[in-house]
């Protein structure tokens, strides 16, 4: 018996989403009276022992450079043998790009029930029931997993990174690694920025900003806060901002601690991508803008006047 956590790495580094997955997996292990183990694929530069502070006791490391590049099919096979080796009955993924590609494959391979997009710890008093996001953040479903092995893919920013102290034992896991059928010819990563889906603070702009030339003021606020930037769909469609900033029903779904909406009306399709944010601030000159109904704090007024003042106040607060 064990809980096995897939610890995702990129360029040798362990992402925050994995710290959340480990914290969550460690708690599930505690609930089930068993141990939390991890699996890492590929070369890593971060210390794996140190991940023990989030509650993982043992980490199986497949230290094979051919796994430095993610491939759903190859990773699934390696994970399936790790599940057997660790005698895992619960497998945890982060519901990020990689998790969305392998968790379902592993589920089909092991005939192990999957809850993708989990947002809370399982209920284990009657069966094994996991709450997940459905209807694009407009509702939740409690889903029972009815198989021996259970797979949970945890939504990003849904479970806090929790330090419990300790160090993990790292063991090399030797297994056959197949050659990937998908050949990658080029990779283009936005470096030096927090990816939008992992960001804790997000400042977002809509059509109310009038044009791309006005984004400087939004970026100033984002910089002062240490926030990522996002936008509404018409803004991305008009190429005022890059597509990877588009949030909503048809863009990214995010769940930051703070979402600041500047000049966005709050259409239902926009809300679908941001309504899981913990705190929503809306600044809009129209008091009837639907976004105010979904907001925690709001200012009715002109973004062009208000935003620079907020930026100044944030800088003052932070002493910058």
């Amino acid at each position: 018996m064990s809980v096995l956590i897939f610890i995702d790495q990129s360029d040798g580094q362990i992402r925050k989403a994995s710290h959340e997955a480990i914290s969550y997996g460690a708690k599930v292990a505690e609930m089930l009276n068993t141990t939390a183990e991890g699996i890492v694929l590929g070369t890593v530069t971060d210390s794996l022992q140190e991940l023990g502070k989030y509650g993982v006791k043992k980490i199986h490391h497949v230290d094979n450079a051919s796994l430095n590049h993610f491939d759903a099919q190859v990773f699934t096979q390696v994970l399936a043998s790790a599940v057997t080796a660790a005698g895992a009955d619960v497998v945890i993924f982060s519901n990020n790009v990689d998790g969305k590609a392998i968790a379902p494959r592993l589920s089909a391979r092991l005939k192990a029930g999957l809850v993708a997009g989990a947002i809370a710890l399982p209920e284990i008093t009657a069966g094994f029931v996991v709450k997940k996001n459905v209807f694009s953040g407009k509702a939740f479903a409690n889903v029972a997993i009815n198989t021996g092995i259970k797979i949970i893919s945890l939504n990003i920013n849904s479970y806090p990174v929790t330090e419990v102290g300790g160090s993990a034992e790292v063991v090399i896991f030797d297994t056959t690694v197949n050659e990937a059928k998908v050949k990658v010819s080029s990779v283009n990563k936005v470096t030096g920025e927090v990816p939008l889906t992992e960001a804790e603070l997000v400042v977002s702009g809509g059509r109310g900003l009038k044009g791309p030339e006005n984004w400087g003021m939004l970026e100033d606020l984002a910089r002062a806060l240490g926030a990522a930037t996002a936008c509404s769909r018409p803004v991305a469609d008009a190429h005022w901002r890059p597509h990877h900033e588009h949030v909503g029903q048809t863009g990214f779904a995010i769940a930051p601690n703070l979402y600041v909406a500047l000049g966005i009306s709050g259409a239902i399709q926009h809300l679908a991508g941001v309504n899981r944010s913990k705190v929503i601030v809306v600044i809009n000159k129209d008091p009837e803008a639907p976004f105010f109904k979904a907001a925690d704090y709001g200012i009715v007024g002109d973004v062009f006047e208000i935003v620079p003042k907020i930026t100044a106040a944030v800088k003052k607060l932070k002493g910058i």
Partner: protein
Amino acid sequence: GQQDVLAGLGHGAVSGRTNQNSAVHLGSTSDHVLDVVGVAGAVKILVCISKTPDTTAKIAFTDNNTKFAAGGVQWIINPYDEWYALVRAIELKEKDPSTIIHLITVGAADAEPVIRKALALGGDEAIRVNSSGSDSFTIASQIAGVAKEGGYDLIFTGKETIDYNGASIGGMVAELLDLPYVSLATKFDLAGAGASIVREIEGGEEVCQVALPVVVSCQKGMAEQRIPNMKGIMGARTKPLKAVEPVAVDALTSIVSFELPPAKAGVKLVPADNPEELVRLLHDEAKVI
């Protein structure tokens, strides 16, 4: 009963009890691109279509929060399936008219209007697996069953359903068929005997090449949204839409109940002439900055 829990979701609820392992013959597989014969024939695409409540539909539940309140709800093609998966397939056919496009939906008879709508946009014929669905795995198993018989070169799914938000079915189908899976594709082109695909990765994108057959999940960037024209709508009426019986498969998960998120306490408005107060509240009260 439990079978009905999902009845309102695009996923539908699968009974998993129908024991008719129906053979689906979708024509010869000899036009397969990878056939040893080496004759590059028509590319055969299977596009997975699910139905979902309109993006503005009111989300509510009945029967002690076990059933989606489907009354008065307008059903649409899941946007990712329509705008990206299906339209990209149509664009490929426009480039090479010998391309064959089949649509598949796993659902009860009430899924037919939505699949007809999809046929009005394009596609040669549609298959409805007559199962009201119960979980991602049972749906994926039905799609894999049809795909195995049909000898498809490409299987397109949407990135995710906007009602169940599983983002799972493409990966499951790929595993059941032992095929490579390229998820979250933003661009797709046929290149030689394979495909060249741009896909989202964590914090960026990558370009990759893969031999066919392959399963691809499609998102924004793949194609531009289209509106069906009169000719398409008229033509769709006569396109073949066949219903086939599901293969027997047991669900791995089941929905116990639904919940609505707790209502917001209401917005706290800060006067426009005092934005500093907003910063103070975010720091002292909400404690997010």
